[in-house]
């Protein structure tokens, strides 16, 4: 392992992380909900009365975030190397996996770890390990 100091951005990472933490805090303190993106999106497939509008509002907020960030002179850098077949497969796996696993990086990784939930801590360790292993195989074994 060697640290890529050219790409490493600890300060902006921590500042962005604190913003994510405040957002998760707002959603639980005001709405009583976990800021888990897969759960918020996936819940739309089980629409219940009074449970749809807040989900859509949160998602619209996410979508408008790059527009707001660009207005404050921080247009997002988004480089997607994966080609379409890989994106389709990856999206499918992320969709099914997060619903069976009951959460993703936000629901388990941020909120669940913050709540010291044993399920979330296990899930986070497992999906991190699977992510490390997948990139290792893709870049250093196959690639």
């Amino acid at each position: 392992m060697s640290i890529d100091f050219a790409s490493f951005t600890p300060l902006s990472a921590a500042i962005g992380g604190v913003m994510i933490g405040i957002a998760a805090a707002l959603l639980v303190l005001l709405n009583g909900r976990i800021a888990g993106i897969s759960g918020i999106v996936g819940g739309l497939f089980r629409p219940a009365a009074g449970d749809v509008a807040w989900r859509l509002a949160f998602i619209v907020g996410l979508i408008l975030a790059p527009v707001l960030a660009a207005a404050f002179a921080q247009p997002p850098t988004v480089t997607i190397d994966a080609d379409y077949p890989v994106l389709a497969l990856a999206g499918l796996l992320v969709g099914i996996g997060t619903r069976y696993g009951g959460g993703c990086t936000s629901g388990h990784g941020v909120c669940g770890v913050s709540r010291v939930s044993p399920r979330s801590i296990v899930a986070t360790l497992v999906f991190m390990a699977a992510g490390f292993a997948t990139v290792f195989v893709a870049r250093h074994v196959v690639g």
Partner: protein
Amino acid sequence: MQNGKIVASAFAAGLLFGVGLVVSGMVNPVKVLGFLDLAGAWDPSLAFVMAGAVAVAAIAFAWTGKRAATLLGAPLALPSSRDLDRRLVLGSIVFGVGWGLAGFCPGPAVVALGAGKIKALAFVAAMLAGMLAFEWIERARAGAVAEETGQQTGQRS
């Protein structure tokens, strides 16, 4: 109107969450893959994002734990399950593989959609298809179970 406040606060939380993903750089799959590539040139930034987020959110969750309702009077809808079951582990493995393939998890993919990335649209469409497949499988299983119990009651009568 109470519901209006709930919707407004969800919008504000989503917006701030998304800006956090942009500022932290996590909306960029190349940066996320740089974190997941331990054997290559490693970019530890994602760990700093998690640490910053958890440090703040942990305070809110600790405070929430002692309350029955939120500041807006909404009920607390927090998961109570503590089972470390096969679904949790297998689901997280499948998610982690997908995450490692493209460098996208659900939040950043939705935010990248707002940045006008067509490739993010492809990923999100596939992700929604995966979530829909989950619902169909679960409903088919629930239906099969209901039918089975129905037959058993039928036999008994």
